Structure formats: C-alpha cells, structure tokens
C-alpha cells in the first residue's frame, strides 16, 4: 500500500485517494472549433509514462484535488501540491 501526501492533510494511505488524470490534459474549448483528433486526444490518450508522471489526484476525505509527481517505476511519490488558478 502506497502512502500519498495530501497538501492539506499530510501523508495518508492510498485508498483515501482517487486518480484524477494526467496533469495538463486541458479540455479543448469551443465545441465548434475543436478538431476531432484534438478532442479524441483529450478524451482517450494518456501519457502513461515509464518513470516520472505528473498527475491530478483527489483526496476523498477532504475533497481537495491536487497535483502529484510520481515515479511509475520506483513508485516513489513526491508530496502533493495544491492547485492554484492559472497553474497548468
């Protein structure tokens, strides 16, 4: 069992967290302007990196989303960081 660190609550067991997707997978705006491929990339294509991954997670017990950097090979997880507006 992994231990993740919520920026608001500190280190907690992984089952309190919910995966929220790749960090920076921005929603393409303008339904009449977004090409099919770009929309499909947003919907279905994931980075799935071997190594460092930057992701969004939600800490279910406090309800806050935050960003976390994680190594998918060593499973090391850096402490989560609060998301601020304007941040990628």
């Amino acid at each position: 069992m992994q231990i993740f660190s919520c920026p608001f609550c500190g280190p907690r067991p992984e089952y309190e967290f919910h995966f929220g997707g790749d960090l920076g997978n921005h929603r393409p705006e303008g339904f009449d302007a977004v090409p099919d491929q770009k929309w499909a990339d947003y919907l279905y294509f994931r980075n799935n990196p071997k190594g460092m991954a930057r992701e969004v997670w939600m800490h279910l017990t406090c309800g806050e989303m935050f960003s976390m950097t994680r190594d998918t090979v060593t499973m090391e997880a850096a402490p989560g960081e609060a998301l601020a507006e304007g941040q990628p």
Partner: protein
Amino acid sequence: MTARRLPLGGEIERARPLRFTFDGKVIEGFVGDTLASALLASGRQVLGRSFKYRRPRGLFGAGVEEPNICADVTEGAAFRPNQRVTTEPARDGLVLRSASTAPDAERDRTGFIDLFARFIPSGFYYKTFMFPDWHLFEPRIRAMAGLGRVDPAKTGPVGDQVNHFCDALVIGAGPVGLAAARMLAGAGKSVVLADDGSRPGGSLLYREAEIDGMPGADWLAETLAQLAGLGVTILPRTTAFGLYDHGLVALNQRHEDGRADTLWRVRPERIVLAAGAIERPLPFSMNDLPGIMSAQAGLSYLRRQAVLPGANIVVAANNSTGAGVARAMAEAGARVTLVDRRPDTAPLSGIACHAGRSIDRALGRKAVQGVVLDDGTEITCDCLLVSGGFTPTIHLYAQAKGRLAWDETRLAFLPGDPVPGLTVIGGAAGQFTLGEAFATLPAALGLEGAPTAAPSSYAITPAWPEPGRKGRIWIDYQHDVTAKDVELAARENFTSVEHLKRYTTLGMATDQGKTSNLNGLALMGALTGREIPEVGTTTYRPPFTPVPYTSLAGLRGGERMNPLRRLALEGRHRALGAAMGEYGGWLRPVHYGEDDAAILAEAKMARATVGLFDASPLGKIEVIGPDAADFLDFIYYNTVSTLKPGGCRYGFILAESGVVYDDGVLVRLDEHRFVVSCSSSHVAGVHAMLEEWRQDRFPARRIFIHNATAGTATITVTGPEARAAIRAAGIAADLDDAAFPHMTTRPGRHGDTPLRLTRVSFTGDRSYELSIRQDLAPGLWDALDGAARALGGGPIGIEAVMILRAEKGYIVIGKDSDGMTRPMDLGLAGPLRSKKAEFIGKRSLLQEEAQRPDRNQLVGLQPADGGGLLPVGAHGLDLSGAAPRSIGYVTSSYPGAGHDGPVALALIERGASRHGEVIELHHLGSRRRARITAPCAFDPKGDRLNG
C-alpha cells in the same frame, strides 16, 4: 524401529501431554511439539502422498521450507485447509487429515499412478487430453489434483490486522538477528523483531554455539532479557511474507492457541533481513522416500523435541555441517554413518565415515531401508539425513528488486547491490558461521556492540544433479518434478528459467520451491552448457509462504466491506411487513404484501387511488452560490439558468464522451440555490463529478456543493388521490394547481416541521415529493399512511414503482441505457440544437459516431405473437442478411398496471423511426415477435399529471 522420543531433553513440556488424531489415528505428544514432531515421534513415516505420482512421502523439513506434508486441520468449528505440519503447534483435540490423499496417506488408492510415471512426464496432460476434448477428462483429473480440501460449510475465523511504524524491523530472530536487534535498540531505535519459529533463537535452539564466551542457550536467555528491557517488540510465529510499495512489510502471525492469524502491516525506516538459509536436498535416485530428511531438520527434531529420527542413521552431506549432525545423532544413541562428498573430511570417532563419496540411490519402497554409494557400498539404514548446502532466504531483498550475485565458494545466490533501507545479514547474506556473521555486523548496521563467536569455517563442494543419470531423482518434491522432467524441458527448448518453471511446474507448489529451485536451475545449466548465474533465478514474488485469506481480509468482509445504507423509515417499513432488498447499495422495501403478487396489486392501487413511496435514497446534492447557475449550465445537457426560482427541470448529465451518465430533476429553490436530484445509485459519483468540475473549471467562483442526501428523507405521494391524501394528512401548503403546478417546488409544514413539496412525477400520475429532515420522517410517514389508507391507497414498494415508470416510458439510467447511449437516442435532441453554452460532453455529441442514423434508440415493445411478458435481454433480429444480426435488446419488461397487458422498453437500431414495425426477438434459443411502439404505453398525453 524408526524414529522415537528420547526419555530426556528438548524444550517439550513432558508434564503436559496432549493428543490429536491424524487420518483417524490417535497421536500423542507434548506441549512444545509441532504437529510434525509429534507425528515423527509416533513412528509413522508415510504422512502424505506426492502431488502427481501419489508416492508415499514423509517429513523433509522442520519449518516453512517443508515440501511434503500438509494436513487439513479441524479444531472445533474452525477449519484450516492445507496446513504445513512443521509450523503448526500440536494442540489437544485437533483433527488432522492428510492433504491430497484418498482415503488416507497410508493406503492411498491412487498410488498405482506411480507405476505409470514414465508415461506421464511434464506436459503430459496438455499433450494427451486434447482429443476429443479436454473437458471430457478434466473432472477426474481435477479431482486428483490440488492440495487439501475446502469445507464450504466451515469458514475461517476473522483475523486481526495491525498497522505499525518503527525505526527498524529485524526479520529473523536467530543469533544474528538477535544481535542486530540488540545493537539497534541499544542505539535508541524502536525495533520489531519477527521470527517464523515458535520462539526466538533460530539455530541456537538446536545447534551448538559459543557466543561472547557463553554457551549459545545462555547467551540467548541473556539477550532476550536485554531486548525486553530495551522495549523490543518480539513477534514469534510471524512470517514476513512480502515487501510492498513505500516500504510496507506484510507479516502474518500465527497464534499458539489456534485463534485466527494476525496480519501486521509494518512500515519501518529500515529493514534488517536476518532470515537465515534453507538446506537443500541431495540429488540421488529415490531421494524422496519417507525417512529421508534435511540434516538440519533432523537435528532440530532431536534437540528441540527430543525425537531421534532413526536408530540407524546415514548422514550424507556435501559440506562441513554434516559432521556436527552425525555427532549429535551418535551421542543421542543412534548408529551413524557419515557420507561426505568432500574427500578431505576428518574422521569422527565412533562414526563410520565415507569421505569423498556420495549416494547413488536409496533403497526401500514405503520408507528408506538403505543406501547404495557411488562406489557400490550398500549401507542399511532407517533414516537418511541429507545436506546439499544452504540457500540464503533473500526473498525480501529480491522482492525489493535487489540483484543477486552468485558466490562460487558458498554455492549460493547472495545479495549483490545494496538496496536502500534494507540490510541483509547472517545466513541470508551467505555468512554461514556465527564468527563471520557477527564480525560484519558493525559495518552493516553502522553500530558498535556486536557479539563475538569462536571462529569456525564452512566448506562445500558441488553436488548438483547431473544430466543423464539413471534412476528417478526428485528435484521438486511437492510438485513431483524429477531430473527427467528438467531434461525433457531442455530437449523441448524450455530452457529459460521462467519457461522451465512453467513447463515442469518446478517451484510452483505451495512451498514455492524453497528446497528445489537451485537444484533445478543448476541441472538446467548443466544440460544447456551454462553456468548457474547465467541461468539465473525466477522472479521472487510475495507471499513467501501461503497466507490465509481470512488474514488478508481481516474485518473487511460482507457488510463491513460494503456497508448497506439504511432508510430512516426502515422500522416503519418492517412494521408494515415489507420485504426488503438491496437497490444501489440501499436496503429498500421491495413490496409490502406476502409475496411477489403484491407488486402488481400495489401498482394498480397507486393508479386507482394513491401510493406512498419511500424515495429517500434519491440524490439531493445542493449547489449553492451566485455562480451556481453558471456552473450547472456547464454540468447539465439542458439549459439550467433559465429555470425560475421554485421551478424544476428534468435533465441529463453526460460524461465527456457524450454518453448519458445520469438523469434526474434539477430543482431551483431560489436564485442561488439548486438541488441536483440524481439517481440513488449515482449520488457519490455525481457528487465527486460536481466537485471535480468545480475545482477544475470554476476554482475561484462562488459555488458551494453540499450532499444533503443522507440528512433528508423523501416520501413520494402519487396517484389521483395524492393531493387529497396530503390535505388529509394535515400538511400545510397551497396545493391549488394554479399556485403549485406540475414541475414546481413549494415550502410547506407538517405541524411545526418545515418540509419541501416538489411536484415531479416518476409514475405519470399527479405526484408530490415531500422532503423532510430524516429524523422527523416517521411522523410524516404515519400521517400520510393513515390518510392514504383512508382513501383506499397505501404504501408501495420499489418494484411497483418500476412498473409505473416503465409503462410511462420513463427510463432508469444504466438499465434502459448503456455505455453507448447519447441523449438523442433517448429522444432528447433539443438542447444539442438550441443550447449555445458549453457543457460536458457537447463536443462528443457532434462526432460522427454520435450522429449515426443507425444508432440504438429507446422504444416501447408490445408482444405481437399473443404471448406474455417479453424477456429482458432478448435481442431484436435483422433477418434480411445471410445470418441473423442483433439490432438491439429489451431493457425492461413488466405487466402493465394502468396499461392493459405487458409493457417493455428496448434499445433498437433506428428505433425512433420504426414505430409500428413488427420485429423478431431471440432469447436463449426461443423466438418472440414484438411490435415497436413509442416508449410511453400509458396516458401518452399526460392528462393524469393533473388528474
């Protein structure tokens, strides 16, 4: 005569005798015995049958490495299948049945299979039972396969689970682990010391030693006293079976009194692995006969439980530990012969010694009766103790992705590169003498205070299985893999160590090849001209030993795993004789009458007069704030911001893929306050979705989301007499249709209690949803129930509601929709055309896939063949092509309550434009015919909403 209990000695408590049964025979022992030692002392040699050839087997080991003997253990109501007898303490009254035998170990009736052994090599089953069909043979083969039996009538007890943090976890309480624990605790560290044996001490419990100038036993007693003083937590009978992410070590603790195992989840700052080493067998023909045992196991039985394993013992070794075992057996009164493969072995007084010799074959049928040496010498014996060297127990290091390095002088894989946070010491690091192990402790731990031991030396000469040898040489006892099987694997080119394992099943039994893996890969190396390190090892994976599911599950089972949600009105429902059932995690009234017949009666009653329905699980997620309308416009498929305060609107929430995720009514209580009424099974999902979009897209906006579902009870009053019932119940509200029309919400009171009335309808009849603080719901229910009964109505269960909604064509998301259904497929295309604002899933609705004309669309179905209910799941057929093709399926089917006759809903290809068409349905081999209709079969104009 074979093994016997000596009159003196050992750690057993002779004043405390005990008895248990094994295959129906009484076995006597003492407290301090393991099941194995008591069985050995009883003189019984055949204690099990081998997995494949059903050969008689006896004990080989004395601990977790035991490959041969497992038993199903019953103790009162508790049943534990397939227990390793070497690790289980003997207790009075246990009932043992030897695993994988029929009828018992001694008289196994499948023993004849061994006669055919040469016809059933590795892969035999796969190769032979292909024709005509494996499934013809499977039941009988399966009946013989497997280990132990599971008694479905008996369940294991629930185990405790402990989470623990410490500075250091020392695994293995042998002399080196004890020394390390003392050094760490002495330096102020919090230390847990775990050992899989019944008591700490490891080899000190049966091997001679001199530490710090004291006999081993005295040093052990002194050290244990010191550890107690230093506050070290000692966990006996505890196996560290796995190393998991972020330094989590999982340990399973068995208990002497037989209560359920305890799972320890320990997160140490530092892991010290002092797990020792496991003795390997020697490869010679018939090396699996009962009476052939690991030399260290024999020594352990002698010293710990005072069981001399034979009267006439041959000790065969390829290393310097054989002599000590031979001497101990001779001192205990056995006639002993030492066969040492090393030519330079020093002679021992009183012990016949064959230096430079090895065993060619063992003699005997059901037990060993003698050996023949490689020079032809024949020696009679009733016990053969073997030592083929030692394999360090480095599983946790290997699980941590540590790389093993082959050591040619010790003939063992040892830890190579260091793994951060993990230190391997003692026998696990290949330091097979105490002097050497203690000397390396200060450097390994970075601490002073290591004990000293008299110097000694360890020497070994190779004794690997050799290719092409005659006879049957067992490599893996538990899975009956012989040298011939490994040779076959090599011939058929399964030469990689992972292929060797899977082709022959070497190392795949419950003992995970603790005694066999190295001999197997050494033979494969010899067969393919590779050195042992070139062959390499298979991947080490947890668990190191089998762990009972009850231990892993702990309390997380049944309702504790998935708690049922209970209604505030459950007591009222039960008092009314409701049958309760689980729907979307909630325990809800199915119907109120005696049996299923009540369902249709309740539905008809609601159509005729008034029905009362507990709708409390319906989602009530409040979205509050000046920016709430903007936010919900993005969330909903429909436009929300145009809704007037006090109004309601039915709508969809989509996923970004455009698929309908949830439907429900959105209520606008006032300018800045909405209630999202999502499906009862989607509350948690919708809440998380709202919160996610709020934080992602509206982070600095004034929006607050509050899930009020659990705190609010909702009672639906539906039917032509609904308004009359509410009035009669004494509820204060303006119920005039002009002031309170359909799809609006109004405040009201029941006595002093405020409540909310909402006119929405899931039945097609005039309906009111009354929402109230959940703890005040019983009073409201009683008033409404009395009023409804006076009007000829009463409570209805969820199944009656399912009928009422189905004949109106009202869908249940996930039942009448699937993972492909877009809102247009459900007949709601308007918002896509008219709504200008962005919303979740909009872009996906413009994709070609979503716009395809041949999509499955919601329709109603009526039987067109004079038959009754159409089966749910039946597929519509397109019969125009060469082969029938599915064009969708039936999603809901009920007898009508208001409608005369059966009603059904279905998702049918191009369904919206096919009303009136008759199609063929296929279900489990039978055919039906049905006419496509509009989804709504009852009151299509909706007159009854205000009726």
